[in-house]
C-alpha cells in the first residue's frame, strides 16, 4: 500500500472509529474527571488508593488468569485431537463448538440455577439433597462457568494455528528421534504459540471485564461488578467512570503485553509441503475414545443451555426438586413466540444486526488493511484501540450513546425536523444508534478475522494484480476480498450472533416497543411476574436455536476454514 494512501485510509478509519467509539466513551468517562465543571484526578487517585477497588481489580485479574488457564486446559487438547484425527462425529462437534457462547441473557442465569440450584436438577440426579453449589466457592464457580463459555475462542484459534503448521516440521522432528510429549513441547507448542496467545489474550480481556457471570455467582468483589454497582447507585457517583478508565488502561496494557510476548513474527510457513501426512482416521473404539472428550466438554458446557431449554417447556412451578420438569407444555412457546412484541422484535434484531455487520465489514476490513498492508508506525495503536470495544462495559457505552443522542435531540434543527428526529433521536427511533453500538462492540472480531486473512494471503498476489494494471480498488474487490472471504464469513458469523444477543445498548437505547430488539423482548417477558421466566426462556431458546442453526450451517458450508480466526499480530 502506498504511504499516502495508507495515511489517508488511516486517517479516515481513525476518524470513523473516533466518532463512533471514542467519542461516546469519552463523554461517559469524562464524568470521572470533570466534576462540577472542574478537571480533577481525585477520583482516579481514589480508585488507585482505595483498598476495595484495588482488591476488585486484583480479583478480576485472578479470575482472568484462572479462566484463561482452565480454558487452555480444555481447548488445547481438544484442538490437538481435532487436528490430528478424523473420527465419526467430528463435523458435528466442530459445528457445535461455538454454541456454548450463545447463551441468551437473563434466562441463561435461570437455566444455570435450575441445574445447579439447591433444588435443582444436578442435586436431584445424584440424590444429594439441597447442596448449595451456587453459594460456595464463588471464585471457582465463576472461573468454571466462564471457562466453559469462552473455551471455543481458544479452541478455534489453536485449531487454526495447528492447521497452519507444516507437517514437514513434525515429521522432521520424528525423523530425528523426537516423539510424543517431547515433540509437542519443543516443536508443536512453539509453532502454535501465536494462535494460542491470540486466543488467550481475547479470553483474558473478556473474562477480566465480564459482568454477567460474577453476577450469577454473586461474586461481588471484582471490578466489573463494582463498576455496575456504582453505576446503578441512586446518587450519581463519579467513581465508576474513573474505575472503568483504570480497567480499560489495564486491558490495553495486558493486550499490548500479549502482543509483545509473541516475540516478533510468527514462524512463517510459506507453504505446506505435500506429504502423505494429515489427519489420521481413528476407527472403531479409537474413534469413540477420541470423540469422548468432545462429548464430555460440550455436554458440560451446554448444561446451562439445557436448563434454559427445559425451563421453556416446563409448566410454571413444575420443575422443582427433580431432574426434569414434572409437567411439560408447549404453551410457553405459543405465548412467547405469538406475543405482540415478538415478531416485531425479531424483525428489528435481524435488521439491526445485518446493518451492523455491514458497517463492521467496511470499518473492520479497512482497519485490517492498514494494520497488515501498510508500514505506518501508528498502525499498532490502531490495532490495540480496535480491541478496546471488547473491554468496555456495555452499560458505559450505552450511557455514552444515550448522552450523545440526547444532546443531538435537543438541537434546534433536530427538534423541529421530523426526518432528523428519526435519525438522531433515540426517543423517536433508535435504529442508527443501535446499529452503531452493535457494529462498534463487534468490531474486534471483524478486525481480527480480516487481519488473520490478510496475513495468510500473500502480498505477491496483490502485487501481481497491480503489475497487470489493476487499480487498487479493483485489486481489493477482485483479488483480496475473495481470498479472505472465508475469514470474513467467520467474523460476520460471530458479529451477527453476538449482535442478536446484545444486552446493554438494547435495553437502554430501544425505548419504544416498536423498536425493541429481541433481547429487550426477552427482558420484558422476563419481568412479567409469575410466568415471565418461562416465556422468556421460550423466546431465549428460539434465539439460541436460530443462532445455532446459523453457525452450524455456516461451519458446514465452510468446512475447515471456519477455524481460521483470531490471529493476533
Amino acid at each position, binding site marked *: 500500500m502506498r504511504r499516502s494512501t495508507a495515511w489517508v485510509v488511516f486517517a479516515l478509519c481513525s476518524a470513523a472509529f473516533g466518532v463512533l467509539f471514542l467519542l461516546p466513551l469519552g463523554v461517559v468517562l469524562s464524568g470521572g474527571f470533570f466534576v462540577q465543571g472542574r478537571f480533577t484526578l481525585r477520583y482516579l487517585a481514589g480508585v488507585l488508593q482505595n483498598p476495595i477497588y484495588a482488591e476488585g481489580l486484583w480479583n478480576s485479574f485472578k479470575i482472568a488468569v484462572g479462566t484463561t488457564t482452565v480454558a487452555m486446559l480444555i481447548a488445547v487438547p481438544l484442538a490437538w485431537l481435532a487436528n490430528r484425527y478424523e473420527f465419526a462425529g467430528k463435523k458435528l462437534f466442530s459445528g457445535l463448538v461455538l454454541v456454548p457462547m450463545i447463551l441468551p441473557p437473563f434466562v441463561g442465569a435461570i437455566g444455570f440455577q435450575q441445574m445447579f440450584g439447591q433444588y435443582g436438577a444436578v442435586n436431584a440426579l445424584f440424590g444429594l439433597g439441597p447442596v448449595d453449589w451456587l453459594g460456595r466457592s464463588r471464585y471457582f464457580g465463576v472461573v468454571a462457568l466462564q471457562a466453559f463459555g469462552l473455551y471455543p475462542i481458544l479452541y478455534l484459534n489453536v485449531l487454526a494455528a495447528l492447521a497452519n503448521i507444516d507437517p514437514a516440521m513434525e515429521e522432521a522432528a520424528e525423523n530425528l528421534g523426537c516423539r510424543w510429549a517431547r515433540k509437542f513441547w519443543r516443536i508443536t507448542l512453539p509453532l502454535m504459540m501465536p494462535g494460542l496467545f491470540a486466543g488467550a489474550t481475547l479470553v483474558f480481556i473478556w473474562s477480566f471485564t465480564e459482568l454477567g457471570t460474577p453476577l450469577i455467582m454473586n461474586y461481588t468483589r471484582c471490578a466489573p461488578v463494582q463498576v455496575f454497582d456504582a453505576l*446503578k447507585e441512586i*446518587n450519581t457517583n463519579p467513581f465508576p467512570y474513573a474505575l472503568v478508565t483504570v480497567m480499560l488502561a489495564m486491558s490495553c496494557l495486558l493486550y499490548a503485553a500479549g502482543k509483545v510476548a509473541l516475540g516478533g513474527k510468527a514462524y512463517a510457513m510459506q507453504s505446506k509441503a505435500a506429504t502423505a501426512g494429515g489427519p489420521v482416521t481413528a476407527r472403531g473404539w479409537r474413534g469413540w475414545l477420541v470423540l469422548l472428550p468432545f462429548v464430555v466438554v460440550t455436554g458440560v458446557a451446554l448444561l446451562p443451555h439445557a436448563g434454559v431449554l427445559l425451563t421453556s417447556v416446563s409448566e410454571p412451578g*413444575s420443575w422443582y426438586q427433580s431432574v426434569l420438569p414434572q409437567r411439560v407444555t408447549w404453551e410457553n412457546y405459543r405465548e412467547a*413466540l405469538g406475543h405482540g412484541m415478538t*415478531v416485531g422484535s425479531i424483525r428489528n434484531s435481524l435488521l439491526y444486526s445485518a446493518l451492523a455487520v455491514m458497517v463492521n465489514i467496511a470499518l473492520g476490513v479497512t482497519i485490517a488493511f492498514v494494520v497488515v498492508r501498510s508500514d505506518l508506525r501508528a498502525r499498532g495503536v490502531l490495532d490495540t484501540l480496535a480491541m478496546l470495544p471488547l473491554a468496555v462495559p456495555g452499560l458505559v457505552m450505552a450511557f455514552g450513546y444515550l448522552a450523545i443522542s440526547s444532546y443531538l435531540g*435537543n438541537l434546534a434543527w433536530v427538534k423541529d425536523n421530523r426526518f432528523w428526529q428519526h435519525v438522531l433521536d433515540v426517543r423517536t427511533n433508535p435504529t442508527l444508534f443501535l446499529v452503531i453500538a452493535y457494529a462498534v462492540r463487534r468490531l474486534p472480531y471483524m478486525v481480527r478475522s480480516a487481519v488473520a486473512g490478510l496475513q495468510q494471503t500473500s502480498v505477491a498476489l496483490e502485487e501481481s494484480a497491480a503489475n497487470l494494471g489493476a487499480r487498487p480498488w479493483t485489486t481489493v474487490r477482485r483479488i483480496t476480498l475473495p481470498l479472505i472471504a472465508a475469514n470474513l464469513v467467520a467474523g460476520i458469523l460471530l458479529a451477527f450472533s453476538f449482535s442478536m444477543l446484545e444486552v446493554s445498548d438494547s*435495553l437502554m437505547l430501544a*425505548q419504544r416497543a416498536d423498536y425493541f430488539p429481541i433481547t429487550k423482548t426477552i427482558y420484558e417477558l422476563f*419481568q412479567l411476574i409469575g410466568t415471565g421466566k418461562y416465556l422468556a426462556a421460550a423466546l431465549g431458546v428460539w434465539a439460541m436455536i436460530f443462532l445455532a442453526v446459523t453457525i452450524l450451517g455456516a461451519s458446514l458450508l465452510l468446512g475447515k476454514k471456519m477455524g481460521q480466526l483470531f490471529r493476533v499480530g
Partner: protein
Amino acid sequence: MVRNVTVLAVAAAVVALPFLLRQPAETDDWRPGDPVLTIVTPHNEAIRYEFARAFSEWHRQHHGRPVKVDWLNIGGATEISRYLVSEYVAAMRAWWTAQGKPWPAGAADDMLAIQPSQFPEIHAAFRAVDDPGKVTARIDLFFGGGEYDHTRLFQQGLTVPVTGLPDFGYPAQISGETWRTATLFGNTVSTFGICYNRDRLRDLGVVTPPRRWVDLTAPVYFGQVGVADPTKSGSIAKAFEMIIQQQCHEAVRAAGFTDAQVDELERAGKDFPPAYNAAVGQGWLNGVRLVQLIGANARYFTDSASKVPIDVSTGDAAVGLAIDFYARFQAQTSRDARGAERMVYVTPAGGSSVSCDPVGLLRGAPNRTVAVRFIEFTLSEAGQKLWCYRPGTPGGPKKYALRRLPIREEFYRQADRHLPFVSDPLNDPLINPYRLAEQFVYRSRWTARLFNVQRDLIRAMCLDSADELRAAWRAIVRAGGPARCPAAMAALQRLPVTWANAREVTSRQDRLTYLGEWTEFFRRNYREARNQVGQAASLSAAGNRGGDKQDACLILP
C-alpha cells in the same frame, strides 16, 4: 448440496415459527389525528397492556376519541430518574443557550438543587417554564416507580402540580408515607415483607416460620436469605428504614413511654426528655444491628427486586425480603401438583409501612390535557378495578391479573361489593392496607434525616464488607451462636456512629471518605470478631481437657 439445502430449510423453519404463531393483532380504532400520550414507566408489560387498553376505552367513552399510549421503557425507577434528569438538563441547556445566555459549569447541579446556590436565575427560570415548546423531555407522565423517586424528581423540579382533580377518597399521608401531593398521585399500594419456602424450612429443621424481621437473623438461615439492595433502589431503602423504625418504636415502648406520650412529644417537637431520646437512639442502634445480622445471613444483595421471590419459590433461597405483590404472584405460579403454594408471603405486623406507587405529570408535557385525564383515570373506579379484579370480570382487566391493591378507601369499606370479582380478599385484615397502616406509626424525626446515612451504613456494613461479615458470623454460629460468643458479638456489632452524632459526623466529611473509613472499620472489627471466636474455642478446648462439657455446635452446610 442436500446438506446445504437442509440447513437452509431448518433455518427458514426456525425463523418462520413466530410468524406462524403470531396472534392476530387486536383491532384498535385509533386513527392518526387521535391523541397520543407518552408515558415513561418501570411497570411490566401486563400493567402497561391493561392500562393502555382500558384508558383508551375510557377516554373514548368520556371524551369521544381513543388514545394511543406510547410507553417508554428504560429500566427501573432509578434508571428512569437518571434518564429524566439528563433529558431535562439537556433541554434546559439548549433553551437557555438558544436565548444567547451562557451556561456555566455547575449550572446543571444548581438547577436541580432544592435551593440554588450559584445560579438562582437558571433555577427560577427552570421552575417557571412549563411549555413543551421550550423545555421538555417530550414525555407526558411518569407512571409507577415508587414514591421516593417521584418525590425526588419533584424536588429537582421535573414534575409539576395538577390542580382541579376531585377528591378520590384517600388520605394524603398515612403511616409516615405520602400517598398524595399536588404533583404525585398514588394509585396503588404495597407493603414489604417476608417470603419463605415451606420445603426449605422443613429441610433446615425450622418449625415456626418467620413472622418478624428479627426472625431472619436466626443462625439457621445463614446464607439462605435473599435480600434486595437498598443502595440501588429508593423503595428498598425505605423498607430498610421501616425495619429500623420498628426497633426504635419497641425501644421507646420498653423504656416505658406509651404511644400517647410519644404522640405528644413528637407533636411538640422540642424539650425531649433525655431518657426518651436515649431510647430512640438505642432503638436506632438495635435496628441497624438487626439489619447487619440479616446482611450476615444474606445470600446476596440483588439490584433486581423480583429475583428474591423467584429464588425463594425455586428453593435457591429459603427466605427473603420481598414486595408483597411480587411474592403473592410468584407464590401463585409455584404451586405443587396438589395445588398447594410452596411459597408463603407475610407482612410483619407493625414492621412495614404501606407505600404507594404514584403517577406524576412531567414539566413541559406535550399533551397535558390528556395526561391529566390519565391521572384521573387511574384514580377512577374503572382504573382502580384494573389493579385488583380478576381478568374477564366486569370492569376488570382483559388478560392479566395484576394482583395489586387499590388505594381508594371505599374499596375496603365496601369490600363485599367487590369480593366476587377480586383476586385477593380486600376484607382480609392482613391484606387491607388501611388496617396494616394502622399498625405502623412512622415518626419522621427518628429516621428520616438519617436516610442517606442509613443507606451508606448498610453499604459499608453489609455490602462492601460482606465476605468478612459472613466469615465472622459463620464462626460465631459454628461456636454455638451469639449467646456463647459475647466478646465476638461485641466486636461484630460495633458501629462507627450513633443516632445522635451520625448526621454531624457525615456532614463534616466527604461521602467517599467516610464510606472508605467505615468499610475499613467494619472489616477490621469483623476480623477481630472472628479471631475472638477462634481464641475462645481454643481456650474452651484447653478447658475441655479438664472435663468440661461442651454443648453441640450448630452444624452448618
